[in-house]
Each structure stands twice: as C-alpha cells, then as structure tokens.
C-alpha cells in the first residue's frame, strides 16, 4: 500500500502556513453538527478535545481514569521546550528543529519536526494565558533552564511538576467546554474497539468500567491521544493503567503501526528493589545538570560510596563525552550505564545501579540553592528508597520511559485509515528514534492545541461520508467482537492474574528487546512470545463478572493486547539492521561503541500492517527525505 505523508510542497519554513491555508474550513454554523470522538485526556487528547469543543464541534471525550486530570502527562517533571530565545543564547525555530532531528538520530520527518518547533512558541503563550504557573525570574519574566542534550536554555518549567501544570491547564480548558456543553465527558470509560465503516474510522466501542456496560459511540472523526506502549515491558515509568489497547485495536482494524522498536530508556530512574515492583519511578533528568554520574573504577568494589576516594571513581560520562558530560542524551547515558553494570561495576542491590552524586554541587551551590532546585525530587527519592540524597549519592538505573513509535500518521496527523487522527505519544511522528528531554510535552500540546483542531476540520469539510448511527451493522459487529473477547477472558479459569503473566512478558521484552538487541535475542523473543501468549490464554484467571467494576478484567484486556504488540515490536527491531536512537543493535556499532546508523538502507519509517494474531505483519516503508538537514553521525563527544 502506498504511503503518502501529504507533506506540503515548498520551503520548509512555509509548509505549515501553506498547509493551514490549504486546509478546508467548516462553516461555523455547521460545526455543531459534526461529532468528534476524542479518546484520551492527556496533553494531546485533552487539549484537542478542549480546542475542538471551543471551535463549536460536538466532542465526546473518553478516559479510563476517574477524571481527565489523571492522564499520565501529569507525571512529566522536567519541562517543555520552546524556541522563544528568551535567554538570547542563540536559540531559534531552526535550531530547535535541528536539535530535534539530530536528537532523534535522523529518523523523524523533517516537515513535522519543523512545524513542531514553529508552534512551540505559541504553546507557551497559550499556557501562560491559562495561568500555568511557570517559574519566573525576579523581574517577572519567564525563567528557562537547559535540559538533557541541549546547549541552549529553552526549557520552561513549573517546579518539577511541569507536566502536571500543563495538564491541569488543558484539563481546566476542557472543563470549561464541559460546562459550556460542547464537550461531553466520559470518565471510567475505556475504548475497546474501533468502528470502521467503508474504510473510515467512525466510532468506538467502550466499556463503562463502573457498570460493565458495553456501548458504542459513532461520529464523524475519531482522535486518539491515548499515550505510549511502554508498559509492554511491564516495568516502566508509565502509570500502572497506561496501555496500548486503543492504538492496538485501531492497528488491528487497519491503521499502520510505525517504528514500534523505537523505545526510549530513561537513564535516571530509581532502581528496582524486588520482584513485587509494580512500576519504576523517574527522577527528573534535570538532576543531571548538577549531579555527577559515577561507578567504582574496579568491578566488585563493595565499599560504601563515601569510602571510595576520588581516584577510585569513574565519572564515565564526563570521561567519554567531554563536551556534554553528564548531559549526554538519554539513549547514550542509558547504554553507558548498562555497559558499566555489565562490567560488574554497578552499585546497589543486584549491581543494577550507578551513582548520581550531588556532593560537589552541594559544596559549590550550598544546600539552600540545591533544595530550591531539586528539593521535591530529593524528598521523592528518600520516600521511595529510605535514603537521603543529602547524605548519600542517589542510585539510578535506566528504565523504559517513552515510546517514539506509534500509529503511523501523515503530516495532518491522520492515520492511513481516513477519519482516524492520532496525537501525542500515541503517534510516531516527531521524535524519530529518540526523544529529547522536554519535547514530549511540546509535541502533545502542539498536536492538541494547534495541529489537530486545524486538520480534523479539513477532513470534515471535505466530507464524502454519510451520517451513521449505532444501528449500523459495523457497530453491532464491533460490539460482538468486544463481548466475545470479554467472554473469552472471563472463561479461561486458570490460576494466574493478568499482572503475573504480564510480568513474564515484560521480563522477556527487557532481556531480549531492551537496551541492547541482537538478532539472536530478537529471534528468541519471537519464539517465546507466542508461547507466553498461549500460556496467557491457558492460565489466566479473571474473577467476578463482566457486568460490574472489575479491575482484573480491565487489566486482562490490556495485557492481552500487549502480548500481540510485543511481537510486532520485536519484528520491527529485527528488520532494522542498524542502531539508531532508542534502538540499539549490538551488531551495528562503531568501534568505540556508538550507534551505527545505516542511512542508505534504513532511512525510512517502518509502517506495519496487521495480518492476524501470530501471522507475520507486512512492512510498508515511508522513505525519509532530508532536504534541510545534512545527515551526520550523531556525536556528543
């Protein structure tokens, strides 16, 4: 199937303006006659629902949590990038564009990324007007900091709770529309199937998580802002409930899944403490601004950190990357942490950790300044580990954090299924093979506030589809599929909870398809995952019934989808015979251990087509053309 990204012609600086003019507009009087279904209430989904409602469309907005304000965007700590150049340190749209393309290891679409950089400034304006309490300087102007992998200070932040504040801004805008009657909010309601009519996405089947009732909603377009699939690894920094069911169901219904193997492993997470661990907690990357990463020079050094003299410490990031030092990009920092731990130099239980030490910063800046900057992070660390970072260095280890892959979308964020739009982490679009710090919030809000409201309108204005209601046979078929699946999950009658079986899947994924992948490990994973999936359908037990609040059933459905997605992820990792960003194939590295891209053969987006459970998916390629940025080996030395 040909993949047309519908990138507007013309110079890159003018593409978005040109596109905006080319987009058809809906007659204001007709807007309320169009019903848009928005799934997800995070930065992308919530902002899109609020803005579409504000424009006058009838919006139905869904989330599985008890209120839209719980969406996992809330947990983002560090900040949001914008090319405002308030610091006068040489930032520009062009530079943010360049940094993002380079940071993504040249695997993102130029036009999308340029647009992202372009609208980044509008996002800050919008959020400030909403009352988002960004950090300020004494003069009253907005404050910035430099953040993971950037040489300019372009990150706006609200303490260590930027995601929370941006989300609350979007949530409040959304509630304003709820009060105005343009948005109808459905909470504790989970999308379980996409309804496709004559090749177009027309609605969703949902389960009311309180009553268990299965029902359908149809409309004129469906927008998914349902987040990433990091929980396929079981342990990740995602929320316990974060899941891929919405995008996976859409994928099964024909939407292509792009670049699933691009998974970001975040270098600064609190190490796992035992088998019962239910999630991993991220410590903001901003800590790397003042913390120094080190391990003992010799393997098996069991001395407590304060007993290890300077001469026996290896500040390996500063040693290997003199320019960027402790601020080296996420993928690089993570892999180096794994390397030193593989050498037996890891610290803490199981030797899976490295030190992030603030001793020198405390000496240089004093406790007061440090607590102002990181006080809440220090507290958070102490709460979880029982250790005080004022006295002992933090222990950190990489953990799955963000998934750059997602549903394939064109320049207008529409998937190959007409009428299905995808925003934020759920799509694949802007981060290439690796996402830079403080760029996720930027992308989510760019999609939600500025891109989707314009492009969804264009789709509606072009028309070509008739109104349908829930009596349509496609609706009944989709509902029947959902009911059958529920029945199947309920009737297995094994002994294990979905959580337990999920953990087994996660172990395989982390070992075989984690920070370092090989042909062998991926082949192994591809042989084990189907077995585990069978085991899941043999040994699962879901207690209770489908007609009540049943968290075991919710979880079972999500895990069932992860079992299918895991396989696709491995297929993608196996076909990509190169290393780039969050995808590191051990076979493809430079002599000094860096990722070795293969631009001649792999400068494309891998967009996968679903062919059935267990069947080999079909790969479609969208070539990536770099007209504005010269492809180069990424170097942070």
């Amino acid at each position, binding site marked *: 199937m040909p993949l047309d990204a519908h990138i507007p012609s013309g110079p890159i600086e003018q593409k978005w303006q040109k596109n905006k003019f080319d987009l058809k507009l809906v007659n204001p009087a007709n807007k309320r006659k169009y019903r848009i279904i928005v799934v997800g209430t995070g930065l992308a989904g919530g902002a899109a629902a609020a803005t579409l409602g504000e424009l006058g469309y009838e919006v139905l907005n869904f989330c599985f949590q008890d209120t839209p304000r719980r969406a996992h965007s809330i947990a983002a700590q560090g900040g949001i990038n914008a090319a405002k150049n308030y610091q006068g340190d040489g930032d520009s749209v062009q530079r943010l564009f360049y940094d993002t393309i380079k940071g993504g290891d040249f695997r993102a679409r130029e036009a999308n990324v340029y647009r992202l950089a372009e609208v980044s400034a509008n996002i800050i304006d919008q959020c400030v007007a909403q009352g988002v309490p960004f950090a300020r300087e004494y003069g009253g102007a907005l404050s910035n900091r430099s953040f993971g992998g950037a040489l300019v200070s372009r990150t706006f932040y609200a303490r260590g709770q930027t995601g929370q504040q941006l989300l609350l801004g979007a949530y409040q805008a959304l509630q304003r529309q*709820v*009060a105005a*009657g343009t948005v*109808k*909010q*459905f*909470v*504790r*309601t989970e999308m379980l199937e996409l309804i496709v009519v004559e090749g177009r996405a027309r609605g969703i089947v949902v389960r*009311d*998580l*309180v*009553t268990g009732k299965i029902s359908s909603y149809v409309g004129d377009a469906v927008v998914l802002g349902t987040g990433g699939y990091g929980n396929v690894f079981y342990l990740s920094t995602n929320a316990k409930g974060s899941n891929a069911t919405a995008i996976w169901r859409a994928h099964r219904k024909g939407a292509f899944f792009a670049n699933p193997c691009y998974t970001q492993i975040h270098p600064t997470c609190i190490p796992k403490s035992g088998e019962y661990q239910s999630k991993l907690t991220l410590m903001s990357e901003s800590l790397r601004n003042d913390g120094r990463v080190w391990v003992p020079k010799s393997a098996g050094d069991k001395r407590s950190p304060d007993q290890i003299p300077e001469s026996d410490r290896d500040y390996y990031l500063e040693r290997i990357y003199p320019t960027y030092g402790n601020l080296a990009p996420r993928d690089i920092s993570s892999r180096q942490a794994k390397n030193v731990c593989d050498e037996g130099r890891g610290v803490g239980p199981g030797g899976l950790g490295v030190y992030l030490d603030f001793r020198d910063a405390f000496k240089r800046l004093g406790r007061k300044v440090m607590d102002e900057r990181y006080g809440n992070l220090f507290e958070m660390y102490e709460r979880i580990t029982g250790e005080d970072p004022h006295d002992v260095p933090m222990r950190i280890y990489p953990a799955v954090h963000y998934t750059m892959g997602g549903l394939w979308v064109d320049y207008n964020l529409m998937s190959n299924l007409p009428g299905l739009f995808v925003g934020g982490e759920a799509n694949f679009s802007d981060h290439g093979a690796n996402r830079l710090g403080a760029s996720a919030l930027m992308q989510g809000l760019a999609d939600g506030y500025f891109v989707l409201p314009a492009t969804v309108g264009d789709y509606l204005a072009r028309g070509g589809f008739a109104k349908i209601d829930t009596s349509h046979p496609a609706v009944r078929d989709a509902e029947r599929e959902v009911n059958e699946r529920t029945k199947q999950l309920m009737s297995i009658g094994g002994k294990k909870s979905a959580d337990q079986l999920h953990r087994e899947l996660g172990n395989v994924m982390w070992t075989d398809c984690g920070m370092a992948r090989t042909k062998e490990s991926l082949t192994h994973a591809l042989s084990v995952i189907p077995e585990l999936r069978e085991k899941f359908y043999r040994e699962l037990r879901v207690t209770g019934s489908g007609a009540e609040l049943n968290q075991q059933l919710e979880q079972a459905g999500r895990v069932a989808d992860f079992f299918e997605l895991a396989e696709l992820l491995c297929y993608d990792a196996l076909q990509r015979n190169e290393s780039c960003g969050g995808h590191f194939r051990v076979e493809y590295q430079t002599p000094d251990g860096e990722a070795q891209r293969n631009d001649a053969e792999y400068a494309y987006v891998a967009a996968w087509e679903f062919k059935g459970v267990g069947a080999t998916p079909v790969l479609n390629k969208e070539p990536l053309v770099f007209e504005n940025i010269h492809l180069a080996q990424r170097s942070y030395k």
Partner: protein
Amino acid sequence: MSTSVSPVSAPRATRLGALWNSAVGKKALMAVTGIVLFLFVLVHMIGNLQVFQGAEKINHYAELLRISLPFLWFTRIVLLVAVFVHALAGIELWMERQRARPVGYQDYRPVVSSTASRTMIWSGLLILGFVVYHLLDLTIGVVNPRFEHGQVFANIVASLSRAVGATIYVVAMVGLGFHLWHGLYSMFQSLGLSNRGISPTIQKFAIGFAVLLTLGFSAVPLAVILGFVG
C-alpha cells in the same frame, strides 16, 4: 460513565441574603457576630472583677450600666441579634455537616486538630444554655435563692456560694474557653484575614484570650465558694 452539566441561574437575593445563603457567608456572619460577642464577654469579665473591690463598687458599676435605658436596650438588642445569628448559622451548618457525611468512619484519627475545634457545636450549645440560666439567675432572678433587684453583689454571693451554682459557672466558663480557643482563631480565617505568616500569632492571641477569659470569669465563683468574697 459520563459526567454532564448544565448551568442554572443563581437565586436572586439581597447581598446580605446572598451572604447568608452561602456556607462561606454564614461563616463570615458567625465571625462578625463572634467578634461582637467576644468584645462583650471581655468587657463583662473586666466588670465582674470589680467583685473583688467590694460590694459597693460592683453595685455602683451595675447602676452605671443602667443609667441610660435606650443604651441598655440597644446593647441588649445587638447582643440578642448577634447570639441569634451566631447560633442559627452554627446550627444550620452543623446540620449540613451531617448531610455531607451520612456514613461515618469506623475509625477516624484526627492528625492535628484540637479537641476544641472539633467540639464547637457542643461548647456553643453549652454556652447558649448557660446564658439562659445566667439571665434567669442574675438578671431576672427566678433561679436565684435570694434575688434582690439592684443588689448585684448579694445576688452573686447568694448564687455562687452554693456548690451547684459555682460548678455551673465554672463548667460553663471552661466551655467558653474552649469555644474561644478555636473561635478567636477561626474567625480570622472565616473573614479571609489570615495567612501563613500571621496565623501562628493569631493562634497565640486566641489561646491567650481563651485562657484569660476562662480564668477571669472563673475567679468570681471560685472566690465566692472558697470564701474569699462574701
């Protein structure tokens, strides 16, 4: 499950009525009337202490209070209205509170709140009951064993030299102390006048006056029953 809302217009009311209709407004009215009542008890206590200067002094003071009848009734009406508003608002809010949590906790452990703050309704009702008794005892005189109009000192001694009389007074004054302990602090918050900087000072002020008033008021019955006055 879905959440939907539709705006309805607010009921029209006068500004004071609107204040009464809102929980915040009721609390504000309680704070204002509370200030009036606090100032009254403060003056009352200072007046009472003249008992220690002998019969003549306090009897003369009582006469002074009645020198202008319009002033006396003005004061009485202001106090009556204050008591009425304060008590009615308190009772209405308390009833609302019962509706706000129809099913109580099996186990509830207060973390920081004082006993005084959680028993305002009871200390308030105690004081209300006492005021009735007090008026019957020393103003109207029907429950006083030897009431004689104008003979304030003798009336006081007659009432408080009985163990039951003195006990009622002391218990009620402890109740008043509890009520002021929290009330004097809370009224600043209800009027929007407190913040984290000033709050500890307000707390000290409240505790200080609560203790002062309790001791000041209790001194009279204690002195009488112990035989220092009489």
